[in-house]
């Protein structure tokens, strides 16, 4: 199993020969990766290469057709019990935000804590949970918009509500699918620093799909480049040079060509 060179610590999540099909198309081909604790991994690659599919497999929304995912302290996530246990420690920031438009920002962040309540409880959200949600909104700079409905927020603000909904869970595994796509660069840098700070505090593994390569280089410890549903690059962020970039984003290659064309 190819362990990453940058992960001397314990691996939080391990992916072994993971194959995921969507419809008739095989999106991920026998992917083997492991993600070290207290690290940030950026997943990069052209659109349609399977980055979102990898996120979906990691949080259990997509079932692998072959291979296995396991989490430290839980084991393989191929049965209902272990999957639920893993999901309780996982939080995801979704590409399309996945918020409820007619609820307030605070109520949406509270949804991140929905697994701590019985679904049939008619009681309002307890004060302690509401306070946690408000603090999470404060962390992304949106405390002032807490009572505003989502459909009155801008794209960037919605994305930050999505990030707050993930952070409020205090997860061990944080997945993000383009979490800064609709946030302006200055704010994206601030949020990235926040992620770094959380990772430095310990006990958190972050896996982010990023399309801004500059952000990937500065924020991540490690970069995984996907091409054609396979790992085409795996190494420290500093090692992701122009040659690696060309291998993963063969922008000048003919559409039906095999390899990259030298620029």
């Amino acid at each position, binding site marked *: 199993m190819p362990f990453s060179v940058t992960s001397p610590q314990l691996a939080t999540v391990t992916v072994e020969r993971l194959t995921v099909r969507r419809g008739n198309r095989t999106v991920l081909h026998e992917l083997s990766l492991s993600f070290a604790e207290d690290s940030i991994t950026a997943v990069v690659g052209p659109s349609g290469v399977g980055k979102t599919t990898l996120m979906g497999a990691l*949080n*259990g*929304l997509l079932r692998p057709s072959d291979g296995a995912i396991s989490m430290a302290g839980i084991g393989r996530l191929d049965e209902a019990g272990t*999957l*639920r*246990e*893993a*999901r*309780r420690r*996982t*939080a*995801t920031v*979704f590409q*399309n*935000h*996945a*918020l*409820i*438009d*007619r*609820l*307030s920002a605070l*109520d949406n962040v509270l*949804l*991140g804590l*929905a*697994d701590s309540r019985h*679904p*049939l409880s008619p009681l309002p959200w307890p004060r302690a949970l509401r306070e946690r949600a408000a603090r999470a909104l404060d962390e992304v700079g949106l405390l002032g918009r807490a*009572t*505003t*409905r989502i459909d009155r927020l801008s794209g960037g603000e919605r994305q930050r509500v999505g990030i707050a*909904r993930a952070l409020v*869970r205090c997860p061990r595994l944080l997945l993000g699918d383009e979490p800064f796509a609709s946030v302006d660069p200055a704010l994206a840098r601030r949020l990235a620093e926040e992620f770094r700070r959380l990772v430095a505090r310990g006990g958190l593994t972050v896996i982010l799909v990023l399309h801004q390569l500059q952000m990937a280089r500065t924020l991540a410890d490690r970069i995984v480049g996907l091409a054609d549903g396979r790992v085409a690059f795996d190494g420290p962020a500093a090692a992701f040079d122009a040659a690696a970039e060309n291998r993963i984003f063969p922008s000048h290659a*003919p*559409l*039906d*060509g095999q390899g990259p064309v030298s620029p």
Partner: protein
Amino acid sequence: MTAIPTTSKDAELAAVLDDGRRRVLSGVATTVVLVLVIAGAFAYANAFDLERYRGAVSTILTLAADSFPPDFSRWQLWGRPLLETLAMSIAGTVLACMAALPLGILAARTIGPTWCGAPIRLLLNTVRSIPGLVWGVIFVAAVGFGPLPGVFALACHSTGMLGKFYAEILEHVDPGPGDALRSQGVSRLGVLRFSVVPQILPRLVDVTLYRWEHNVRAATVLGVVGAGGLGLEIITAFHLFEYREALALIIVLLGLVTAIDFLGAWIRGRFLRQE
């Protein structure tokens, strides 16, 4: 882009344009068929038989003249039937709502178990196909005259309609927030409670209030088969050729329906305003 040979690009372009022409042709064909069906429907109902319209307008005018001015002289006796109609509509709508919610959840293709969707939808269609009056006759026979059979008749007929609408509303719910909850380990029941219900609540309230307003009018018609209420008064007045009193009763009904319409709009307004 340079990799695609020009000839295959030409073929692709031609295919795109061909597709456009096919769409226009199928649009014309659809319009022709639609016009034929509509004309056929009118013809089948003898709507083009001008002989049938002789004397129609004058008869209607005579009936209208006989109903004027409306006669409100017996208004003290209408309070009870009015309350009966109102009670029937409220109790019938609430019963229907309680039955339609679980049925709608089971019938929704995206939420309920797959095997029970089709039989539940068939049940809802059956319940809806039986006219309200027939339900009225059945329950008058079962529990006797008065508003009680009206409540059950309205509930049965409304369950069929509300269940179908609830299921459709549920099917169109955005799955994104629900997936977000599932990805963090929330159960199906939790997804229903925390994602689906908050999303569909305004539309559920909307449809249910509309059905309530509909049920006030339907409760009137149920008076015909002995289910009490304002309808019984209207039918009795008609049978006694008291057209002026019948008109007065219809005006009272109009007032009731309008009041409920306003009340519904107010409730909706409160529901949609969150902040």
